């Protein structure tokens, strides 16, 4: 199994980097745990969940088992975590928080209904992305209209929203057309190219989350 691990590591280095780089924000988050707000801690919990899923994904890949369903499990975790996150940061606005909860529940139901054991459920991911983009819009609207934050560049939810906006908008089309981009019937080279795009976007997104966790230690001082 170790030989296969090194073989796959050599063949798909970016896959491993994407799966394991999530350790970096987790470590930065744990180091800065006392500075994190409850809403940001939800995202840290989600990342730990993601790391566990990624390790299982790698293991199933090593034992030549289908691991595609784990992407769908990750999507379910994603909509729950980000749904709670936006509910918490938008709870001052009753209307906006209700919208977020409603959309997150709808998206969660779609995730469960379209759950596929063998393939990536592109539509579930698209639904999540649309809901999260709407949440980001609502959050940004809140920031701009209320003007409560003194320096937005030191506001952790702003950067977390930036990370989710980049990852959702950058992957929405790829997952919307997953039947021709990420399907088991997609030509290998095309599949790999689109997967690389999603992985690079994921790395950028994780970098932003790492930055957010580190930034939290300065946020209260500002």
């Amino acid at each position, binding site marked *: 199994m170790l030989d296969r691990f090194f073989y796959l590591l050599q063949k798909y280095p970016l896959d491993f980097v994407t799966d394991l780089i999530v350790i970096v924000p987790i470590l930065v988050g744990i180091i800065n745990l006392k500075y994190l707000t409850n809403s940001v801690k939800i995202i840290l919990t989600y990342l730990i969940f993601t790391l566990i899923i990624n390790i299982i994904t790698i293991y199933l890949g090593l034992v030549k088992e289908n691991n595609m369903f784990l992407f769908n499990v990750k999507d379910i975790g994603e909509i729950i975590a980000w749904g709670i996150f936006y509910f918490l940061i938008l709870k001052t606005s009753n209307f906006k928080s209700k919208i977020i909860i409603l959309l997150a529940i709808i998206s969660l139901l779609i995730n469960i209904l379209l759950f596929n054991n063998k393939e990536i459920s592109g539509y579930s991911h698209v639904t999540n992305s649309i809901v999260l983009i709407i949440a980001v819009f609502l959050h940004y609207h809140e920031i701009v209209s209320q003007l409560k*934050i003194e320096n937005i560049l030191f506001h952790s939810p702003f950067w977390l929203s930036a990370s989710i906006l*980049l990852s959702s908008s950058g992957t929405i089309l790829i997952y919307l057309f997953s039947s021709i*981009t990420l399907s088991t019937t997609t030509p290998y080279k095309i599949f790999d190219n689109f997967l690389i795009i999603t992985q690079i976007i994921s790395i950028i997104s994780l970098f932003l989350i790492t930055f957010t966790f580190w930034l939290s230690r300065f946020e209260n001082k500002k």
Partner: protein
Amino acid sequence: MNFQYELIFVGTALFLIMAIGLISFVAYYQQKQLKQKYLQQQQIQELQAEMQRQLLETALQAQEVEQRRIAKDLHDEVGAMLSATKMSLNQLIKKVADTDLNPIALQTKEMLEESIGHVRRISKELVPSTLENFGLVTALDEFIQKIHVASGVEFFLNYEGFESNYRFDKKIELTIFRIAQELTNNALKHAEATEIVLILLLKEQKLNFIFKDNGKGFDLEKVMNSPKSGLGLRNIASRLSVINGTHQFKTAIGQGTTTEIEISIN
């Protein structure tokens, strides 16, 4: 098929650009809005300060008007009545000159003259007519001479950069004069000073007024925070705020007090 992939790729790139654009716009717009909000708050604060200044100015004007009215009543009514009483008493003294009542009549005359003097002094202090007619230097000079005669305290008055008959704006003259009165009162009453120096310096459109005494000084922070004892000093600050003047107190226990005032005369 390739065209489809290219479309998805270009679409993804466009979505990413739009996302980056939105993030940048929100950051920029929020900062801009915040700056605008601060500017508005600053303007409101300035307006409030200006309103407060005008209110204070009106209050001080009303106080001056009231003092003028009291001075006029004292001079025209009480003073005139006392003068008439004195004339009448003089007649009476002539008639009782050779009787036992003469010493009492003379004593009454003395007391009456003293009262007339007091009324005249109070009336003059209430309205600084010398200030209105001859300017700040002459008024201060007259004021310190009176205090010197009454208390024995040594005064030194110096002025530089202008002639003794130079006229400043009425508000500035009155403010400096009233502050000098207040500080002299403090120096005599609380500091037990024996020597007071007053300096007026006009330079580059700025009038500096320095008041120094060799009294026992005080704990500035303690006095300023005390609602009772800091009243006089706060009055000075209020008067100065009306004419956009600044002030600085330098004092320590046992080291006298120096008050420096700067007023722009533009």
